[in-house]
């Protein structure tokens, strides 16, 4: 066999006919493959430590001082710190998931992905895995440092439940990120600008700096639709158990159910939308038009 040959198959028809195992393993390998540049990139350009960790910590601190200026109860500082940590994941979803396909298209990588046999969801999962690794470090630093510096006291009774809620929140968040990434396939530059609408307005309705129940109906709608809102609300209820005033609503159990439904629903919706939007992008010729 020459160096150019790799797999000996009798015919192109035989080569095209993959087993279920081959399909699954290819998708799993693609997840690892796509996560590789994201994690590697993080290690190769150290400026992110300053911009992705230190500065966001300072931004969180600003809201801590707003509450101090208002002479708010100390639990509110805890709300802000927890919200600040979760902000990192939301920004990761918006900038490193949703927008990523737009950037891949303008660089010419997108069409190479679509011409390859792995499922495109595997690429999105790989991006998510890479993003989570990087973002978790940021969130952890913000949480730990802010807790120490500002004297936040967490009261946690059910660690397992808290970690479960955290995991489900991430699953739902990145599932939503996959949906947004699919939309960007077709929207192009408009979707990129839409990112701006997904930052402060989402911060507001998700109660990043205050319990979302204070927003009344708007808060209730956010709990039902935005993973950040419902996840943060549940985590606050679990992290500040002994609080003298209501921290969140509805109950943690209800919010866990909502998160599970969101996780499964978003991922399935992303799968369906990706297939439909890929077909539409192929129909309109948008897989390889740059700057559109």
């Amino acid at each position, binding site marked *: 066999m020459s160096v150019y040959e790799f797999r000996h198959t009798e015919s192109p028809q035989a080569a095209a006919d993959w087993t279920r195992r081959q399909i699954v393993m290819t998708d799993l390998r693609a997840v690892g493959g796509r996560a590789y*540049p*994201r994690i*590697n*990139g993080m290690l190769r*350009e150290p*400026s*992110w430590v300053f*911009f*992705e960790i*230190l*500065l*966001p910590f*300072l*931004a*969180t*601190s*600003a*809201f801590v*001082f*707003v*509450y*101090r*200026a*208002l*002479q*708010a109860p100390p639990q*509110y500082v805890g709300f802000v710190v927890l919200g600040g940590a979760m902000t990192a994941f939301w*920004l990761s979803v918006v*900038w*490193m998931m949703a*927008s990523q396909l737009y*950037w891949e298209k*303008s*660089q010419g*990588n997108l069409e190479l992905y679509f011409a390859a046999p792995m499922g495109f969801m595997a690429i999105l999962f790989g991006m998510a895995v*890479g993003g989570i690794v990087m973002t978790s470090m940021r969130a952890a630093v913000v949480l730990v440092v802010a807790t120490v510096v500002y004297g936040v006291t967490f009261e946690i009774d059910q660690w397992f439940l808290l970690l479960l809620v955290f995991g489900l929140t991430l699953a739902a968040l990145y599932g939503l990120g996959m949906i947004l990434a699919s939309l960007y396939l077709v929207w192009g*530059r*408009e979707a990129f*600008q839409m990112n*701006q*609408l997904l*930052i*402060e*307005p989402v*911060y*507001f309705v998700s109660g*990043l*700096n*205050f319990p979302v129940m*204070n*927003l009344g109906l708007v808060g209730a709608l956010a709990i039902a639709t935005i993973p950040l809102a419902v996840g943060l609300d549940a985590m606050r209820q679990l992290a500040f158990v002994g609080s003298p005033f209501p921290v969140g609503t509805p109950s943690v159990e209800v919010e866990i159910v909502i998160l599970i439904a969101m996780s499964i629903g978003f991922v399935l919706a992303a799968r369906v939308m990706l297939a439909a939007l890929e077909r539409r992008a192929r129909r309109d010729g948008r897989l390889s038009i*740059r*700057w559109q």
Partner: protein
Amino acid sequence: MAVTASTVEQAVTPVAGLGSPEWGGFDPSRTEDRGSGETWRGFRAAVSLGWQMQANWTDPFLFFVYSVAKPVSAALILVVMLQIISGGNDPEYRSFVVVGSALWSLVMAGLAGLAWSVLDDRERFRMLKYTYVSPADFLIHLLGRGVAQVGVGAMGAIITIAIGIFVLGVPFDPAAVDWMGLTVVMVLGLASILAIGVMLAAVCLQTRQESWSYPDAVAGALFLVSGAVFPLAVLPLAVQWIGLVNPLAWWIQGVRTAMFPGGISSIGGTGSLWTDLTGSTAPDLTTTVVVLLVTGSLVTLAGTTIFRISERRARDRGLLDRTTGS
């Protein structure tokens, strides 16, 4: 061929016949600097380009929403925080946070505008190298793009303040506004914003694609020491020093003093470093303008210097036409 006076003269003397300028031949006078006229033309072109790029991607309605939703939401976060704690019984503080939040959208626009111009042109449009090698000064070009972005941000700021006044009950008396002082403060403040934006653009010349989030990160950090949504007096004294040399803090103070005289001061107040140092409760508008001028000039000088150093480093390392990305 040896370089002699005659060969040099030959090189700079226009050639007759088909080599003459009338026939499209080399005209050495074209290599001369055309002065401020050319600079102004380049700046105008950059402003126009920046505006086109901001405004041409969707219909006007969405563009308007983009200029409204973002800054208004930011203000509402703070208003709700205030409402939760004070129960709505502090209209002065509501005015404080609404104005600060509205002005902050200008900061975001200025910082993001310059930084994203560098990243957009380098990574997406691959035009950075062509802009750079043109006769137009690259710094002037970026400033033009930044001004366009600030223009977009200004729309959001004005709308947020208007909503604050007409919907959220922020007390406002147009007769009490010092319009001249406000104009001076705004001009000096915007210059400072652009200077900080230039510094950030300089950083982005060196970093890779993920720098898209840097303007948000830097603005978030500056948010802490600018007195935008809480008085500097709340900060530890050591940190207040940073606020006192931060032109953005003086700019916001100046706008508040000009538009809402007698309101809460972001620089002064009980427990503030300013009061400790000067004995006065809050700086007046004249003091604010002078300090803003001084700090703004220093930041402008620093921004320009850092940009030139970064630009040289980028040329040295061949960063002007690279693409990164992960």
